[in-house]
């Protein structure tokens, strides 16, 4: 699709901060994303769910170009994603990401993990970045861990540090890639609570998660994916009460007990 095509789409959905239009992606011969069309409105929360291997992680990883797509357009806050590294970095400065395995930098203390991005990528003075880092650590309720190293923290604490690290770039959009899947059960809620607060504060969020309680509580739209396609998308009430597609019904019956 051409550049002008994406501009038309911009006019078509002026409030959408993320637009995906006819996005296809292959891993080798494997068609992992098939004709993805998705708009995310400013301040809205999208929950993406689906069986493993359905392409849901790949989908959100395309939004900050951790994966590249082969066909279609992805526009993030007015920037069309191309192989141009400057455009990619522009988008990445606006998009925070939280990973399943936290991916904190183990050789840096918590506070250094937080300040590294803003100081290097946005040339923020170290002292200002540290002040903001302490505030964010209070917001995720672990101010006392600032000088520790990631290896000294529990999984739940590490994931909250990872959320704070992503917030340090003052992102317009937050991507969550199964943020609670690697956590012990007793730590899931402390992370979900932070995410819920973030949603209540008006952050635009795209969450890949199997936490259906969280989806019910905060999502504006629940997207169900299977085999690389968006199978169904509906507000949570309708999605859980009256799923239309058979595949959605099967998935929900397996995941909800």
């Amino acid at each position: 699709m051409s550049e002008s095509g994406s501009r038309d789409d911009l006019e078509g959905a002026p409030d959408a901060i993320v637009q995906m239009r006819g996005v296809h992606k292959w891993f080798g011969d494997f068609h992992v994303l098939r004709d993805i069309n998705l708009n995310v409105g400013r301040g809205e929360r999208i929950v993406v769910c689906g069986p493993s291997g359905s392409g849901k992680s790949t989908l959100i990883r395309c939004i900050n170009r951790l994966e590249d797509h082969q066909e279609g357009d992805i526009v993030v806050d007015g920037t069309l994603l191309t192989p141009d590294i400057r455009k990619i970095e522009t988008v990445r400065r606006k998009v925070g990401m939280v990973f399943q395995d936290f991916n904190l930098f183990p050789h840096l203390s918590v506070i250094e993990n937080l300040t590294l991005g803003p100081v290097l990528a946005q040339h923020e003075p170290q002292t200002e970045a540290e002040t903001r880092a302490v505030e964010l650590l209070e917001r995720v309720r672990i101010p006392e861990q600032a000088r520790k190293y990631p290896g000294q923290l529990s999984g739940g604490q590490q994931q909250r540090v990872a959320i704070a690290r992503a917030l340090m770039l003052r992102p317009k959009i937050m991507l969550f890639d199964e943020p609670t899947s690697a956590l012990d059960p007793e730590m899931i809620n402390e992370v979900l609570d932070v995410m819920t607060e973030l949603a209540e504060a008006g952050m635009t969020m795209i969450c890949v998660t199997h936490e259906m309680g969280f989806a019910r509580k905060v999502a504006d739209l629940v997207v169900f994916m299977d085999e690389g396609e968006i199978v169904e998308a509906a507000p949570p009430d309708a999605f859980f009460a009256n799923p239309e597609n058979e595949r959605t019904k099967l998935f929900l019956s397996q995941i909800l007990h």
Partner: protein
Amino acid sequence: MTARSAISSAVPVASPRRLPPARERGVVRWLRRNLFDGPSNTILTVLALWALFVTIPELVRWAIIDAVWHTDDPQRCREAAGACWAVVAEKYRVMLFGTFPYDQHWRGVLAILIIVGMGIISAFKRFWSYWLFAAWLAATAVVLVLMLGGVLGLEPVGTHQWGGLPLTLVMFLGTVVGGMPAAVFLALGRRSSLPIIRALSIGFIEIVRGVPLITVLFMASLMFPLFMPEGVTIDKFLRAQIGMTLFFAAYAAEVVRGGLQAIPRGQYEAADAIALSYWQKTSRVVLPQALRIVLPALMNDIIRAFKNTTFVSIIGLFDVLRATSTAIQDPLWVLYAIEAYLFIFLLYFVFCFAMSRYSEHIERDLARGRNL
């Protein structure tokens, strides 16, 4: 549901915490377990003890009891039945400084102190940063000024006059200080997505790894000048230095690459996600972790680089070993070469053992999963 089994059971208790039961200790137990564990081990132990019994007293007699420690008269050594350590006291200036001008030896001493001092500072983790590398560059510059002279009122000394321990240490220092960045760039280049850079890195590493160090040195000293235009000469020491550095870089590059491969993909992605550029990601996230992982293996290469400096003697440079063999050609003292070589052996051992212990210490820290 079927009937439950009545066999499984568990007993809830309230049991207080206490220390583990005392273990058996004692010398006899240790001896039995480690030295006399079965007939074959007992035989080996007895044989080893016998060998020690035969050699140790003779060695002690030769090296200590009957040894001559101080004399400037080789005749006294000839009369004694033991080692002649006096040769070291007599010849140490030539052994340690070779052909370096005698009245300028203090400059060599300072160069040695700077290099050893920097080595000790580098052993402390609190000093680990890119600043430390800058400090090494500065130390290298100071050492070169000291050794070469010609500025600040220092008498100029050409590299053809260098010799002994300062030459060995400067060669070693240049090899590591120049070779480490080269190794890092080669390792990064080998993993680069740019095909030409990757091909050049692979080509260089494989070619250099495919030839012996002696060949590299002969190339540097004999063949390289043939390729140079008329009238252009490059200092022999510098040519050897470049050869040593490139040789070290090719080996160390493969070690560093191993470290790069050990960094999980998630670290790269997390750095990408916070919008770091390639060089920011490499210098602040990937390399600090990769170099920590491979430090013990790198120390192995560094120790080998130290010992490899002895090879430069074959192209006519007077490193500490060559200087020693020259020193004991004095017909008065030529009989006591063994003592002189033992002294140099001790010198090499002290340097290498210190580096080896240091590497072991780091390995222990890594095994504990500590943040270095």
